[in-house]
């Protein structure tokens, strides 16, 4: 390994917690940690992948009782000799341990430096480095799983398939140009069009799975809207199982919006409780309503909460206008306060295809939860082994554009070299996604996503 110094940093989030882990990596990792440990174990002699109990001392004073996990190069995350010190959570202990290690000669790590070393030591390729960031940032179990699969190279393989097909296309185009003196024809234009079309289709599918990937990465966004006093805040509280929103009988109590996260079946749901929709002269409320609309725009699903006691069709116009204005967003009508209606829920269900609940009595909530989970799962189902992030989607869109340009050239341009311009560009861009083509921008972007300790 070329990096001569040894780095250390807190690897778990700072703040109060049960445990915290401090990472130490570099050629002097063992020598540097050893003086801080009161233990029978000599780390430099210990086997890799072993854990040792010890007291961590700074000079004469004991800082904490810790476990020291030993990893020997190259079989560690960074590929270097590493120690991971598990201590009790809390800011003070971890900070003191890092300070003691720095006094021993360790250098505080920079953001992403552990991963950078892993990369420099061939422990990870670029898409895997990206996946590390995705695993860290994943907010859902399927998302983490897809990221983990990417860590083993799944995404790269999918793109490699497209890339190979494009290379074949490119090779034929060039061969015909190179042998033009012999007047050989290698390229069948119809076949070429079909090939490019298929490749473009695969790219489009990958891009479309971005939305799903976005859900896995960032959670499924659910906006709660409805007329004032329909019970949006009550429903939010009921779903969360605690009192979060202020509930009152006065319409218009919720003036901006509230955001909370709810985990169900391993998926993160972001719930947004919004101000009631109605025309209002109250300035604050108007802003709240505008805010509600912008939330709808960014949501995967909108629950239009209707006060059933005011009539089942009371909010239909609102729901329709949401569907008309935000076509991509799933809109469900939820009939609340069914306990206040004379008809039974079963009777209501015969006439309307809505969800029937009573937020206050806790009725119908399981069905609502199940419905949300189903929606989120089906919209993320397209994500198989591929998790697309912003960088990928940007580059894939460029690939699609290049392929479209190439298809246009097949019709309009006089000769292969024009088709080749865009096929070559598409190849280059694909290579930047997979890391087959070197691009410094990519490196900057990939490594900038990391925080200290990763």
């Amino acid at each position: 390994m070329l990096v001569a110094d040894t780095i250390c940093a807190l690897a778990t989030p700072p703040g109060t917690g049960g445990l915290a882990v401090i990472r130490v990596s570099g050629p002097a990792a063992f020598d540097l940690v050893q003086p801080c440990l009161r233990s029978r174990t000599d780390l430099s002699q210990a086997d890799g992948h072993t854990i040792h109990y010890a007291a961590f001392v700074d000079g004469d004073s004991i800082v904490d009782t810790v476990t020291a996990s030993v990893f020997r190069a190259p079989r560690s995350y960074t590929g270097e000799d590493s120690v991971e010190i598990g201590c009790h959570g809390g800011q003070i202990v971890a900070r003191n341990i890092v300070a003691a290690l720095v006094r021993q000669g360790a250098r505080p790590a920079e953001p992403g430096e552990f991963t950078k070393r892993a990369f420099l030591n061939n422990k990870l390729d670029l898409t895997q480095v990206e996946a590390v960031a995705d695993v860290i940032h994943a907010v859902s179990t399927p998302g983490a799983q897809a990221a983990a699969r990417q860590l083993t190279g799944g995404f790269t393989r999918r793109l490699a398939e497209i890339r190979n097909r494009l290379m074949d296309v490119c090779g034929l185009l060039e061969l015909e140009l190179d042998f033009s003196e012999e007047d050989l024809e290698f390229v069948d234009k119809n076949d070429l069009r079909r090939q490019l079309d298929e490749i473009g289709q695969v790219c489009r599918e990958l891009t479309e799975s971005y939305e799903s990937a976005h859900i896995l990465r960032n959670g499924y966004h659910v906006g709660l809207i409805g007329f004032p006093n329909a019970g949006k805040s009550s429903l939010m509280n009921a779903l969360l199982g605690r009192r979060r929103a202020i509930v009152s009988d006065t319409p218009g109590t919720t003036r901006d919006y509230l955001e909370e996260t709810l985990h169900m079946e391993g998926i993160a749901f972001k719930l947004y409780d919004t101000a009631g929709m109605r025309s209002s002269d109250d300035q604050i409320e108007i802003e709240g309503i505008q805010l509600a609309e912008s939330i709808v725009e960014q949501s995967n699903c909108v629950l239009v909460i209707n006060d059933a006691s005011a009539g089942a069709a009371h909010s239909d116009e609102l729901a329709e206008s949401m569907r008309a204005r935000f076509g991509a967003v799933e809109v469900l009508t939820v009939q609340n306060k069914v306990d206040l209606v004379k008809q039974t829920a079963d009777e209501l269900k015969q006439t309307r295809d809505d969800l029937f609940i009573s937020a206050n009595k806790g009725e119908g909530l399981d069905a609502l939860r199940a419905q949300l989970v189903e929606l989120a799962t089906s919209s993320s189902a397209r994500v198989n082994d591929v998790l697309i992030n912003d960088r990928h989607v940007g580059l894939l869109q460029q690939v699609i554009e290049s392929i479209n340009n190439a298809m246009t050239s097949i019709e309009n341009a006089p000769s292969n070299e024009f088709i080749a311009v865009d096929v070559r560009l598409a190849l280059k861009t694909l290579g930047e996604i997979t890391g087959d083509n070197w691009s410094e921008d990519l490196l900057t972007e990939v490594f900038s996503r990391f925080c200290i300790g990763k």
Partner: protein
Amino acid sequence: MQNRFDVVVIGGGHAGIEASMAAARMGVATAIVTMDPNAIGRLSCNPSIGGSAKGHLVKEIDALGGVMGRLADRSGLQFKMLNRSKGPAVWSPRAQNDIALYPQYARELLESTANLTIVRGKVVEILVKHDRIVGVRTEDNEEILCKAVILCSGTFLNGVMHTGMCRTDGGRIGEKSATLISDLLAGYGLEKGRLKTGTPPRLDADSINYDVCELHPGDEDPQPFSYLTDAVANKVMCYATATNPTTHDILREGFDQSPMFTGRIKAAGPRYCPSVEDKINRFADRDSHLIVLEPEGMQTNSVYVNGFSTSLPEDVQLRGIRSIAGLERAEFIRPGYAVEYDFFFPYQLRFSLETKAIAGLYFAGQINGTSGYEEAASQGLVAGINAALKLRGEGEFHLRRSEAYIGVMIDDLVNKNTEEPYRIFTSLAEYRLVLRQDNADKRLMKYGHRFGLIGDTAMETSRTRWDRVDRFVELADKIKLKPASVNPYLESVREKQIEQSTQMALLTRRGQVRLAGLLQNDDESLQELEDINHNETVTLAETEIKYKGYIDRQMRDIERFQANEEKRIPDNFDYDNLKSLSNEAREKLSKIRPQSLGQASRIAGVSAADVSILTVYLR
């Protein structure tokens, strides 16, 4: 004899001619040493200059102030712009040349150039002191002292010729080979390899029945290569015929006697100029290949059989030839043969073509593993310019891949593995649409002018020409043509007619529309173009307008490319410490020592992952 020069050029082939002419014209005392002054500029294979991508090289040589284009124009027998049916970027000029006149004019040119001395002799030793050139020694034990040597030895380093199973020493038919220099250079640690090239048989014109062949004429409006030539004319007719299944059967019978198939030629041959036996082998499903019969000169009966390069035994060659329509009674003036020779792996060169091991020693041409007159001449020119620049104390001349095919070639030579003779192709250029044969002067003349190889007048003419084109392109965006003016033309080329006045540029971009066609009317807005409405300007402007979208995309790509070329790697960077690099990458990077991350990314055996590692480490 004078025995002290600034530059000594060894070899009078196409590389040697350009190298010695450039150096001498840049004002340094130059000697060109050749075993036979009559062999200067000899067209040892096909008597033809240019062709696909090679024609681009000739135009570039001309724009830089080299001489190949002029010589080809003067000695040309038939001129053709290849690929006319394709886009302007792949149009390539080609000329057939008189095999006697080309060398004659070349020799006359050298003889009439100031600062240039032709020395008859054979160099047996290159004199080096403290890893620096001090001179050369000839066979007659004469020392010529100099500060730079440009070695353009062609196929003469340990050259061995093969015709069938018969093998003789020599670099060209009837000429001896040079054996000593090669071993001597290897002694300085220069790594050498072995390559093979071949040339087809020559036929006696009187023995050919042209009546059954198709005419293969030159262009109706033949265009010269050189900006110095006013006009050229076609003087001969060529004829086309083709191989047939019988030909293929006959040649196949001879495969077991072919030195290539039996492994007697150990070196690799060029993949892209395949011998006819190669073609039969590789394209097995094709039962016919094009053969063009090209007269080699006005004063000779010799006819070159283009498309029949072979190293099969003479009797097999002859039977094969005689199975072809029109050649039933053909007689050989001389059979085809293959030659095997030493080359030095070009990763050992700087971009100036100076060897890294010995200061003042330059290599140009086949010694660098290339094939072709044009490739050799380009390198000779670059080496000659650089040798003179160094003596004048000026910086190296280095063309980028985005500027010239010459830049593409030298970059490839330095960075890629040489497994077979290198031949230029348009597919090797990333920025093909920008590197056209019609804009070589725009791209390169400024350099030739700066070095003193291009005169002020020529420079000025070129500038004016492109100023006109730029103005034309600009106006085409502004000028709107009326429906009444252009609809008749649009109808005649089956394009949709317009209903309201439309920008000329937009109309030009339509598939079937030619810019010249839009100008054949009396729309008053065309008056603005009056002083720049010339054929040449219109042709050049049409390309710029029609393909603007493509050209813009390439230009954006070029900007990114340039940015990567600016990302420097420290000169003394120690790759051995970077253990995470693959072994091959570490070895290649240490050998080639790329100047930039961009260059590193082009080195064969260095993967994108390796360059990423380098980038992450260097940041």
